């Protein structure tokens, strides 16, 4: 169920698909219109038979395009050449009025079809160029600058450019949608994996861990290896931190998830069952402060020390407490160290939290380890 790498075709985009569908029908209607308008002025036509032959060629083309549904650039460049020829034929086959003023042309409005198609394929630049080409052909047909082809030109240029721009937007939107869907599939896949891993592999690893420890000796070491892998796997499938996704959304983030990614193996995250929402920038600062505190635990309480990170959501404030079970430091020594500027951790925790409008304090007692308590107001602080 991995996200499939769909080829970037216009078929994905509903808007582009609809426009192509409309164009396919428009080609037929434009042909009917051209035929009808020739019928209206057939008496004055210079060469009615040849004009009808031009319409005949366009009909074959239209039928082919209707059936084949081709959307590539090549065929539409060819269509452009055909449309240009049809426009030019007006000069010799049509009524004297059309031939000299460009009042109407033999293809009528059919020559706009390749302009729209190229705009859909190439975007606004392609649409602009295609419309300019057709305009040039229409002017060439009349043989002089005249008001009629020029006012038509305005419409065609606008049509080509606007539709091209619309196609660009639709394509960008589509790419974004595709990315979002891929991400969604990724998350769903991870959820599924998490369930499978949880029900099978984690159970087995936890079992090996426990039995190994009970048996002792070599088995105990095997058990420890299993325990390590159990932890990693659990972090992978259950923690599921997708920080880039949350940052992309840029709304409030769940502090529990943000912290889960930061909490190391020797620490336990303790939190509520409900999400603890915090502004994403604030959450990042809190995570950094907690990381600094855990760093401190490693440095001062030793590698054997356990740590607990407790998230307590008070509504208006969040209290994050980091405690370790190391030997602890006396209150006086913390104050003394902070005064002499030796306690770098103090400022990297305190500074961050105070910048958020909160406060941080150390609590320690012999036997109870060291505890850092951080109060963070949820509302926007003057930073």
């Amino acid at each position, binding site marked *: 169920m991995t996200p499939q790498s769909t080829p970037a075709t216009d078929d994905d985009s509903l808007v582009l698909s609809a426009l192509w569908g409309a164009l396919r029908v428009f080609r037929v209607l434009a042909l009917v219109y051209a035929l009808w308008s020739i019928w209206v002025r057939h008496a004055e036509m210079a060469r009615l038979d040849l004009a009808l032959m031009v319409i005949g060629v366009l009909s074959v083309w239209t039928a082919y395009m209707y059936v084949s549904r081709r959307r590539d650039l090549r065929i539409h460049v060819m269509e452009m050449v055909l449309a240009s020829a049809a426009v030019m034929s007006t000069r010799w086959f049509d009524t004297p009025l059309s031939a000299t003023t460009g009042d109407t042309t033999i293809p009528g409005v059919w020559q706009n079809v390749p302009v729209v198609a190229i705009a859909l394929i190439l975007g606004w630049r392609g649409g602009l160029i295609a419309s300019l080409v057709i305009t040039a052909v229409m002017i060439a047909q009349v043989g002089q600058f005249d008001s009629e082809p020029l006012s038509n030109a305005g419409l065609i240029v606008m049509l080509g450019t606007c539709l091209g721009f619309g196609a660009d937007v639709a394509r960008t939107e589509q790419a974004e949608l595709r990315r979002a869907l891929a991400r969604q599939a990724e998350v769903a896949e991870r959820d599924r994996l998490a369930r499978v891993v949880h029900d099978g592999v984690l159970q087995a690893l936890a*079992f090996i861990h426990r039995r190994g420890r009970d048996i002792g000796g070599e088995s105990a070491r095997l058990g420890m290896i299993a325990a390590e892998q159990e932890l990693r796997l659990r972090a992978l499938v259950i923690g599921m931190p997708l920080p880039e996704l949350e940052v992309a959304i840029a709304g409030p983030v769940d502090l529990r998830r943000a912290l889960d990614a930061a909490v190391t193996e020797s620490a336990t995250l*303790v939190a509520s069952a409900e999400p603890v929402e915090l502004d994403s920038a604030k959450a990042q600062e809190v995570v950094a402060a907690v990381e600094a505190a855990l760093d401190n635990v490693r440095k001062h309480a030793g590698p054997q020390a356990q740590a607990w990170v407790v998230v*307590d959501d008070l509504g208006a404030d969040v209290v994050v407490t980091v405690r370790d079970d190391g030997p602890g430091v006396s209150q006086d020594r913390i104050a003394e160290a902070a005064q002499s500027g030796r306690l770098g951790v103090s400022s990297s925790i305190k500074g961050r939290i105070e910048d958020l409008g909160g406060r941080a304090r150390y609590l320690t007692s012999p036997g109870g380890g060291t505890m850092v308590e951080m109060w963070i107001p949820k509302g926007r602080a003057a930073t």
Partner: protein
Amino acid sequence: MKGQANNPRQPGPDGVDPLAGADGDLGSGLADRPLRVVVADDHPMWRDAVARDLVDAGFSVVGTAADGPSAVSRTLATAPDVLVLDLNMPGMRGSAVCAELAAAGSPARILVLSVSGEPEEVLSTIKAGATGYLVKSASREEFLEAVRRTAEGRAVFTAGLAGLVLGEFRRLGQQPPPAEGDVPAAPELTERETEVLRLVATGLSYKQIAAQLFISHRTVQNHVQNTLAKLQMHNRVELVRYAIERGLHE
């Protein structure tokens, strides 16, 4: 959202204080008879291992179950002191098993033993009547001690569970007060209970908490017990209210 609250990163004494209640003989409970236990787990290797550990330690395993419905029927049929319950079993979620047993008036106490740590599921199982929660990677000694404690009617609280319970009270406290008179008010913790719960959440043992607050070990135990009782009581009242509402409207 899953999983960070109760992961077994520390096999240490997180809330379960192995020294606290180890004054009796192995496996002996209130009376002289061995404690009777039902083990419910859908993984055979876990079920067997847990049962063997219990038997080795002098407990009497009176039944095992491999899915939710049979966990309920075995427990009702054998009336054990303790049901050791895995959270994610086929047929019925752990919380549903607890609710069924409570509805049937079963006196068996329930200890949840799970590899999971899915916070919502743990919390709802506790609210539905389980009085203890232990992750599967806890050591055998911790586990046996937890079964003994559960049998005595004492709550088995890990740091993670304390966090969940505290979080639930915070959530209830932040709900707007009920407008109607017949809606039960959300339960509240006393300041002391909150303090104790927070200390349990930071991984301190009852003993350490007692020393820090200058109160007895027993008092700490009582505070923890009370928080759980309040939550379960509230849950029952809510369920009854819900049932009545449904009944009135149908």
